[in-house]
């Protein structure tokens, strides 16, 4: 019965063509009305949105590793959900490379149960393409869908063979589910640990060429065309892959793609400085050269890139405090994404705020076919209240994620999160905003 | 700043020392000169020349770098390691009468390091010390056998010996 009025905020809602000062009335966990100068007595609780904040449809991170079941020392569904809420996300989609792998209804149900117990953000499980992610037989995809999975992937690896990928694309057509693909030709990757280029060569690190990613992307895009299935290219990093995506889209293939913030902010120069061989700079796909980073920015600007997703990959401190060769791949991302997006995309004019919301909310909802992405009347009241001019100093120690493996510790950025609302409930409020009585 | 010995005086002083060496050591055949780097080395060579003029005999001469034997290494708070130059003693020192030569005798620690170094090369019959200037303030029980000039100083002063072979002119200057 609770009715709450969010008054006077700057609403950015591209789906409904809104970008200006509007009031938003929330009732029973849904958006009841959006309009100008709504009457104050329409609600039990009126919240005046401080000027300068943006009221947006809830952000959705469609590539997150929550590590539960099996690797709870790195993260749990609960801690990951808390990190997501603090990062301004109202929903996350979590990857199946857990232990055991999420290739059956039992694990899916377990994850959903943990998410319900945490009671913070929406968690959409992604199931495995193949049993155990072994790349031999298809997993019971219909069962996974039934249990609540919104997509399938063998992330961590590509789908092992062209034949299996073909079958997966064909089979998932029944459910209009995308196959999310970690594009990487395994024999070109061999035992590489960094981008194959001048930086890795001078530091003596084995390299992974950009073409290892693009070759696989071309395989998958061709198969999507062949089958009419839908492929979503995860964590795209190489300019050659972006070319492949443009080619595929041009031919009408059903392909979408995502880029992580670290791939549009950092380059392989981080391997040498400020900290040489910093394992918090080791992830897969690796940080590539300036031309690739700039290509990702271009793709984000011109619409070739559909989604920004973090590939949040928490690892315990002990696991990363080893030689570069032996450290696991991955960095966290949930709690740095919004600041990096504002600081490196919006403020320099690479994208408008509207376009940013498409990348972080509208399109993820569309790709995964989940509710969200807009503040339409009747939609769940998932709202992210963002602070584009907030001065933020990234602090790994204060993050809610269990793991602190981020290369951005200490970075000063402009942009952050004021509050996160899921189903009308406030799941995060930034203590910096003392006079934001929400 | 005062020049306490000029080139002319230095030449006469060294000649006098050479005579003393020949007098006190019956027979120059067992003698050898070892100069302590850096300025002890040209001084040793000059003494060898003088002794040859006096006695007709060639006295073997060597150069000793004592940096690695210093007792104050590894104790600097700041600063790079002192530069190490090579040691060159191209003769056996066993059973010889060694004349250690240095420009200034001060605390005595350099000589202690030189004695440690020299012992590693063999067992001389005896070692005598030749210095151009003794400025006092010994911290170890070390005494020179031949002294060019005694110059009393205070610890705040410094004594600069300049030699033509290294500095382009001969003089001894007291600063401070």
């Amino acid at each position, binding site marked *: 019965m609770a009715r709450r009025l969010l008054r006077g905020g700057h609403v950015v809602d591209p789906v409904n063509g809104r970008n200006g000062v509007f009031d938003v009335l929330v009732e029973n966990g849904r958006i009841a009305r959006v309009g100008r100068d709504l009457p104050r007595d329409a609600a039990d609780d009126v919240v005046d949105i401080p000027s300068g904040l943006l009221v947006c449809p809830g952000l959705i991170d469609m590539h997150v590793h929550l590590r539960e079941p099996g690797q709870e020392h790195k993260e749990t569904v609960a801690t990951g959900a808390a990190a997501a809420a603090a990062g301004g996300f109202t929903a996350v989609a979590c990857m199946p490379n857990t232990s055991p792998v999420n290739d059956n209804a039992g694990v899916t149900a377990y994850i959903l149960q943990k998410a319900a117990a945490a009671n913070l953000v929406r968690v959409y499980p992604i199931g495995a393409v193949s049993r155990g992610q072994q790349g031999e037989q298809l997993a019971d995809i219909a069962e996974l869908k039934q249990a609540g999975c919104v997509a399938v992937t063998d992330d961590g690896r590509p789908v092992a063979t062209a034949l299996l990928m073909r079958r997966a694309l064909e089979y998932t057509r029944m459910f209009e589910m995308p196959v999310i693909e970690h594009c990487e030709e395994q024999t070109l990757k061999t035992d590489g640990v960094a981008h194959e280029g001048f930086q890795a060569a001078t530091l003596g690190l084995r390299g992974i060429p950009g073409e290892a990613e693009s070759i696989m992307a071309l395989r998958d895009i061709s198969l999507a065309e062949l089958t009419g299935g839908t492929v979503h290219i995860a964590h795209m990093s190489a300019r050659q892959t972006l070319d492949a995506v443009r080619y595929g889209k041009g031919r009408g293939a059903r392909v979408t793609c995502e880029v992580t913030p670290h791939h549009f902010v950092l380059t392989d120069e981080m391997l040498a400085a400020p900290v040489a*061989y910093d394992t918090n700079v080791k992830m897969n796909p690796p940080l590539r050269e300036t031309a690739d980073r700039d290509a990702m920015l271009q793709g984000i600007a011109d619409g070739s890139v559909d989604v920004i997703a973090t590939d949040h990959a928490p690892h315990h401190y002990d696991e990363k405090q080893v030689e570069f*060769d*032996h450290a696991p791949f991955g960095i966290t991302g949930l709690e740095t994404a919004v600041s990096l997006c504002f600081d490196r995309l919006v403020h320099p004019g690479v994208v408008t705020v509207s376009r940013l919301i498409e990348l972080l909310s509208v399109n993820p909802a569309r790709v995964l076919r989940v509710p969200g992405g807009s503040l339409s009347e009747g939609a769940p009241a998932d709202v992210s209240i963002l602070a584009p001019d907030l001065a933020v100093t990234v602090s790994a120690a204060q993050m809610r994620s269990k793991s602190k493996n981020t290369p951005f510790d200490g970075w000063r950025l402009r942009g952050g999160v004021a509050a996160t609302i899921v189903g009308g409930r406030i799941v995060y409020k930034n203590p910096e905003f003392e006079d934001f009585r929400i | 700043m005062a020049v306490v010995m000029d080139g002319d005086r230095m030449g006469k002083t060294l000649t006098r020392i050479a005579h003393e060496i020949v007098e006190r050591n019956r027979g120059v055949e067992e003698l050898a000169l070892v100069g302590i780097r850096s300025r002890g080395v040209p001084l040793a060579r000059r003494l060898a020349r003088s002794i040859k003029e006096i006695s007709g005999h060639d006295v073997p001469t060597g150069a000793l770098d004592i940096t690695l034997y210093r007792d104050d290494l590894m104790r600097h708070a700041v*600063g790079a390691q002192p530069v190490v130059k090579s040691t060159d003693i191209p003769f056996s020192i066993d059973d010889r009468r060694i004349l250690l030569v240095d420009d200034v005798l001060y605390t005595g620690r350099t000589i202690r390091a030189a004695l440690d170094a020299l012992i590693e090369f063999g067992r001389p019959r005896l070692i005598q010390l030749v210095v151009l200037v003794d400025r006092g303030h010994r911290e170890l029980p070390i005494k020179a056998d031949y002294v060019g000039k005694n110059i009393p100083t205070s610890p705040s002063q410094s004594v600069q010996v300049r030699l033509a072979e290294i500095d382009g002119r001969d003089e001894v200057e007291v600063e401070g």
Partner: protein
Amino acid sequence: MKKDLLGIADLSSDEIYRVLDTAVAMREIGERPIKKVPTLRGKTVVNLFYEPSTRTRTSFEIAEKRLSADTLNIAVAASSVLKGETLADTAMNIEAMAPDMIVLRHASSGACHLLARICRSKIINAGDGMHEHPTQALLDAFTIRQHKRRIDGLKVAIIGDLLHSRVLRSNVLLLTKLGADVWVSGPPTLVPPGIERLGVRVTTSVDEAVADADVIMMLRIQQERMQGAFFPSLREYYNVFGLTEERVGRARGDVIIMHPGPMNRGVEIASEVADGPYSVILEQVANGVAVRMAVLYLLAGEVEAD
């Protein structure tokens, strides 16, 4: 010098010359009847070797003992790595016993950087993965200078598996810093991307590389490279890239032939060349002790204030 010696990349040309000049004095100590000076007396140096190496480890050990340091050799077999003690934990355990220096050889590039961040002890890199082997490059430079009196302006040809060689990286950095004209040559599959950016000429023709060279440096070829399809066979490698007497004939008349060892006779270098009049390979080994003594001495002083 800084607290650690992790690579030639961190040394200025002045610092490199400092090491070479100090090594001249250190060489003389090896010619005395009592081959010892008291300089590092009471200092403890740990040789922590994760990769087997008789040559380098012995060289460091002799160098440490000649300076009167207390040495401790820890050879970590691969099996104890698998048993689970991380490099970081091993280092911290050793550090608890307060060594003054740790000499580290490890199979992973950047391992010594990890130790330098964790440990207060001074770290000397004795070879980290494919990254650098700074004391090798320093002893190579010392050897070249002994024969040629200088380094700048010399044509130096380095031939072999460029991609996987830490000796190559260190030598390229050092020789270009000191003004040599460096040519590198090897199979195209084994050329590191962008290596020209380090200021070297790259050619797949060994003949071109050695033409009028003052110095020829051969790198070791490892058998495992054939598994990675880097080249088809040792036989073909020798025919195309091996240093034969005929190839040596194209260099200058006073060329010197070098190899960091151990050599594969008949693979990268013909036996006659290895044992021939131009080879200075054994001198390199002798010079290794003097150069390592110089490094230990220069690093052992207190840390320079920045």
